[in-house]
């Protein structure tokens, strides 16, 4: 009986579980929905100033390389779990894989196909720089061939003839002993907070946009006119700790303070203000980090309710609790520190696997203190699909899930 584990979700906690199990000698099937593994955290940026702020984003490319190299891990991209049967130790997982028009093992990412593709913007494009497997991606909606027209340009020029348009979606059957669910989270959709004007005003960004901008460019520019912002505001607890979502997302205060310091470091004369309810400064050495931030960053206790655009600048209306009165202040750039919310389609996976959802929409665990086992024996949870966590905790939780799965594997020798 081959001892293998299926890990659903190729984010940071999924690949950590896969690595730990593979290093202990078990086969791992890593099932990832997107075309490349890495999840949300792969697009984050390093927020170090002179010293590292311990956000551990730099661990991700390192672990991705180890997963790509490991002989015991087989990566199934573009695949989702369609069905499950059997019980702990003897699961049969049915995996549905989107047609692989470009075979990942054949594509050497040489870029010739993108040059010849007639569509603008290109229907066949290079993946993000540190994507694993590093292979080109076809966007079905824009590719002429997949829309029925006759166009074979890219298939003709591909030196390793890795492109093949008449591939069908595959259906695969995996027999595994344990399953680890690591499907991750979705960032809170800031559009739901209409009064904060996200996507109405160009200079209102979310934490995720800031991450992507720093990852791509390395510095901050106003989306509206590309100049350097002079006054930046961070608004905390957007989408967490309110009526409908009664939990603290644990990550937003941390990344907001790290960004604030990074912006101050890159351009000392920008004014940065953070609006908060309760600043979460727990974590080793983080209180001292907060003390340092207080030196040159303004902290106002009181979360704004409305942002209006007046003459190119954003006017923020908020209740300054310390002074006890409502104030207005103008900023060039406002960042909404959006929290972590459960994935919209997690109920579908829950139905397939038979595990139930907790009251906030995350997957539920058997008892409160055992954060990895679900009500179905042999299925474990890893990372933010079980509850909000920052990257180091997601990694630690991934290892814990792997250890749980080991228990099942040892039992069914």
């Amino acid at each position: 009986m081959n001892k293998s584990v299926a890990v659903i979700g190729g984010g940071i906690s999924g690949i950590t579980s896969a690595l730990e199990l593979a290093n202990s000698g078990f086969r791992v099937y890593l099932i990832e929905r997107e075309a490349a593994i890495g999840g949300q955290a792969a697009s984050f940026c390093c927020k170090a100033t002179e010293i590292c702020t311990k956000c551990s984003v730099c661990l991700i490319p390192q672990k991705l390389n180890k997963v790509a190299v490991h002989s015991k891990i087989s990566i199934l991209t573009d695949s989702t779990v369609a069905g499950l049967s059997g019980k702990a130790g003897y699961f049969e997982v049915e995996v549905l894989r989107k047609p692989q028009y470009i075979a990942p093992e054949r594509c050497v990412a040489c870029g010739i196909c993108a040059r010849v593709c007639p569509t603008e913007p290109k229907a066949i494009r290079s993946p993000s720089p540190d994507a694993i497997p590093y292979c080109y991606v076809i966007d079905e909606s824009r590719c002429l061939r997949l829309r029925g027209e006759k166009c074979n340009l890219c298939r003709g020029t591909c030196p390793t003839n890795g492109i093949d348009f008449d591939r069908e979606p595959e259906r695969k059957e995996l027999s595994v002993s344990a399953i680890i669910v690591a499907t991750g989270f979705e960032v809170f959709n800031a559009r739901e907070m209409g009064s904060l004007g996200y996507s109405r005003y160009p200079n209102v960004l979310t934490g995720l946009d800031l991450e992507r901008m720093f990852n791509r460019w390395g510095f901050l520019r106003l989306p509206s006119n590309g100049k350097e912002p002079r006054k930046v505001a961070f608004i905390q607890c957007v989408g967490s700790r309110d009526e409908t979502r009664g939990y603290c997302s644990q990550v937003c205060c941390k990344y907001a303070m790290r960004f604030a310091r990074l912006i101050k470091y890159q351009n000392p004369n920008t004014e940065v203000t953070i609006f908060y309810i309760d600043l979460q400064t727990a974590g080793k050495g983080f209180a001292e980090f907060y003390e340092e931030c207080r030196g040159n960053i303004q902290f106002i206790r009181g979360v704004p309710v409305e942002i209006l655009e007046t003459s190119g600048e954003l006017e923020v209306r908020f209740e300054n609790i310390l002074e006890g009165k409502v104030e207005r202040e103008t900023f060039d750039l406002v960042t909404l520190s959006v929290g972590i919310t459960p994935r919209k389609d997690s109920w579908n996976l829950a139905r397939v696997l038979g595990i139930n959802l907790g009251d906030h929409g995350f997957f539920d665990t058997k008892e409160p203190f055992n954060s990895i086992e679900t009500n179905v024996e042999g299925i474990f949870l890893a990372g933010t699909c079980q509850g909000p966590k920052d990257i180091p905790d997601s990694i630690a939780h991934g290892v814990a899930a792997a250890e749980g799965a080991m228990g099942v594997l040892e039992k069914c020798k």
Partner: protein
Amino acid sequence: MNVDNNKIVAFCCANSAYQAADKAGKMRLCYPDNVRIIRVPCAGRVDVVHILKAFEKGAAGVLVMGCQEGACQHLTGNTRAKERLKYAGDLLKEVGIDRERVKMVNLAPDMAQKFICEIEVMMEKIKEA
């Protein structure tokens, strides 16, 4: 200097700077091509002798690129490299080469842009002299 297109030798730590260089290539960001990248396991591996030898062999500038301070896999790799570069800077000043030609750079694997602007900064320094 007997060399016309004055090369830059970059000792890149395999965990962070080498990956940043790869990312710059994958994003097709152009940077001057007189940079020679030598892969080292950690910034702490680069010794003063290597730096002086690089200058001897006609390099115009040396960059030692390691991880961010506090994020080094070997804990003290990048801090030791920084101290060592101060020592190398003194040695070079004694010989008459300007201290700025040797620089410690802290990078993370996703900082492709910073990798390139550090190289351009070194190019300016070389052009000035």
